[in-house]
């Protein structure tokens, strides 16, 4: 413990250098801007910032992206509470109580609750990342290829299980990602796979172009099809924050505790990101909160629970990313990409090989939480100005960022064509409501999964039961089975319920569940 605190103190010292502080400040402002704009998602923003990190060293790059990630979970709350425009999907629950409180004449107080929840969630997430990452990494040092395969499989199955209303769509999306990862020269045998005689495909498909194309250009095309209907903001509403009284804050201890646990857990479980955390925390409050019957009428619990949980997921996500090298969300997949682009492989060894960097990142999380709250309190008014920009203008620049971002990595025109292809794929995913995250994670984790699987098979004479016979991998494989079986169990229960109460009532019940 003493060692961790010493390292963290050193991390704060390293954070004090000009490059790191500048990265932190820029990350906070840009993250906030991205979250405020309804057309830009948080993941998209982090993806678009990635090319700017090429010329930077690894620590400021990660500090920049992590700061964006953290402040992005807070920025969208302003537009949700004040203008009923959720900047991010994770801000939707804030419409129910945050906007209602603002409508009741207390917008400043609603923003005060949001700020407090973001501060609490941010500090909890930073503490949990510091506390959990080292034990996680020490545990991971015992891993061999079967354990790695089981963990990656667990990550992928979690993404599929939480893919939304259709598990089949999640599986299809994941399989497409895994197949994209197989394109190129196979590492074990040196065989050309799915290259179709095109030389550039021998190098494989860069997951960066998949991410940028599908998330960025795909979203732009989808919004273009809808005619860029979001009207520019033209409101003179006053933007100020007023803190609640201490006695009011104390009454929300239970809400804070429940939401913190939900947030950190949703962070650690792959696939369950800030959006899931936000909705689950609101749902938990609706089920167990003291004022659950008043939820939706503009009470503080309905603001604190989703905001605190969504911010608290960030540190949870950083734990498997740093300790195992496994991203659990779109944003952490981009951060992993930044690590790899700088030649750093996250995993259990990173605490020995790059301890300074890791603790500087942890220190930056604490600083980012304070910074984003100060920014939210003092500087949100000019930031909200971006909402006055017409959607067609911002979308044109987002598309441009996608192209430049993809081109910058290899200076290859082929990557520009890939962006167009994956932009159209992303649009089709959006159109047919297929989730993009499983495809992206499949593309990134596919090679890790294949290599660990093939190595296990070579080492254990093609005995696939090895994954179940070793204690750690066996336990994780059981979790994989549970993660995959759970949606099926839910489906079965739904069918039984539908038989008992009729399909229409059952469908209505399903839709009413948070």
């Amino acid at each position, binding site marked *: 413990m003493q060692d961790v605190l010493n390292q963290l103190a050193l991390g704060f010292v390293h954070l004090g250098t000009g490059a790191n502080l500048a990265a932190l400040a820029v990350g906070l402002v840009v993250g906030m801007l991205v979250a405020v704009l309804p057309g830009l998602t948080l993941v998209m923003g982090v993806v678009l910032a990635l*090319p700017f990190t090429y010329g930077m060293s690894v620590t400021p790059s990660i500090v920049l992206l992590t700061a964006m990630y953290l402040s992005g979970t807070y920025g969208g709350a302003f537009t949700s509470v004040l203008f009923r425009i959720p900047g991010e999907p994770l801000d939707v629950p804030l419409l129910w109580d945050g906007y209602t409180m603002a409508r009741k004449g207390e917008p400043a107080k609603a923003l005060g609750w949001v700020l407090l929840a973001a501060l609490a969630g941010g500090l909890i997430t930073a503490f949990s990342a510091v506390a959990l990452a080292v034990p996680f990494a020490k545990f991971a040092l015992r891993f061999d290829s079967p354990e790695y395969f089981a963990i990656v499989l667990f990550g992928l199955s979690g993404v599929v299980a939480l893919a939304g209303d259709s598990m089949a769509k999640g599986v299809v999306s994941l399989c497409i990602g895994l*197949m994209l990862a*197989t394109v190129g020269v196979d590492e074990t045998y040196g065989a*050309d796979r799915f290259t179709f005689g095109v030389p550039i495909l021998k190098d494989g498909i860069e997951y960066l172009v998949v991410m940028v194309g599908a998330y960025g250009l795909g979203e732009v095309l989808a919004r273009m*099809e809808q005619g860029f209907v979001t009207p520019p903001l033209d409101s003179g509403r006053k933007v100020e924050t007023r803190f609640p009284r201490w006695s009011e804050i104390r009454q929300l201890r239970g809400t804070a505790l429940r939401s913190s646990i939900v947030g950190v857990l949703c962070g650690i479980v792959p696939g369950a990101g800030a959006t899931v955390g936000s909705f689950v925390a609101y749902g938990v409050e609706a089920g167990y909160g003291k004022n659950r019957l008043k939820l939706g009428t503009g009470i503080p619990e309905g603001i604190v629970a989703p905001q605190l949980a969504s911010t608290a997921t960030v540190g949870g996500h950083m734990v498997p990313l740093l300790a195992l090298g496994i991203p659990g969300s779109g944003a952490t997949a981009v951060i992993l990409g930044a690590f790899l682009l700088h030649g750093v492989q996250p995993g259990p060894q990173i605490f020995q090989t790059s301890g300074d960097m890791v603790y500087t990142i942890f220190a930056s999380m604490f600083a980012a939480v304070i910074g984003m709250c100060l920014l939210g309190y003092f500087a949100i008014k000019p930031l909200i100005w971006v909402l006055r920009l017409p959607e067609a*203008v911002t979308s*044109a620049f987002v598309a441009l960022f996608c192209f*430049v971002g993809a081109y910058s990595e290899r200076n290859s025109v082929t990557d520009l064509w890939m962006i167009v292809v994956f932009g159209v794929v992303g649009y089709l995913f959006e159109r047919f409501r297929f989730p993009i995250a499983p495809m992206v994670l499949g593309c990134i984790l596919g090679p890790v999964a294949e290599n660990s699987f093939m190595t296990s098979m070579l080492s254990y004479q093609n005995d696939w039961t090895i994954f179940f016979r070793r204690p750690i991998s066996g336990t994780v494989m059981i979790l994989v089975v549970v993660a995959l079986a759970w949606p099926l169990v839910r489906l079965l229960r739904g069918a039984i319920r539908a038989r008992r109460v009729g399909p*229409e009532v059952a469908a*209505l019940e399903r839709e009413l569940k948070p």
Partner: protein
Amino acid sequence: MNARAKAIVPYAAMLAIAAFLYGRTASFAALGRPGQLGPDFWPKAVLVLLMVTCAIEILRVALAPPAKPSALANAKQGHGEGDDHAPRYPVLLLSGIVLTILYVPGMQVLGFFLATAIYLAAFMVVGRYRRYGVVAVTSIVGSLAFVFVFMKIVYVSLPIGVGPFQSVSTALMALLGIH
């Protein structure tokens, strides 16, 4: 196209593509060593999972009884929630895709600055933004900013075009102090 057919189309397309790719695995299956899993094993496993999922989903949609919209779904639509029935503009989408496709060869011929300025302006106009003064200023200043940031600060070698367009890019770079 009715709702059932619309739901089946993506899965049927994926099933066909997966079957085609499965056939292609034969070309690299031969490179495997006896007694060991070859380079075809992993893609085959993924493709089988994909084909089985698509087949199940096609059967499920085809055999399911016609769904009646629930009361809540009707209420949501009444309040404008959910964007399934929001107006769509396929011509706009198609124009955006064509514009984006043209941008790639355009960048190689015209160079980054000229192609980007034209692309940005065209994108905004196609996106139904009609304040032409703002369009012109935004696209030119935006393109210049991109050239400056990426070529001068991030050191990315953006395309400079061919023939006379190359001279324009070179002159612009000299003006911005990019060597």
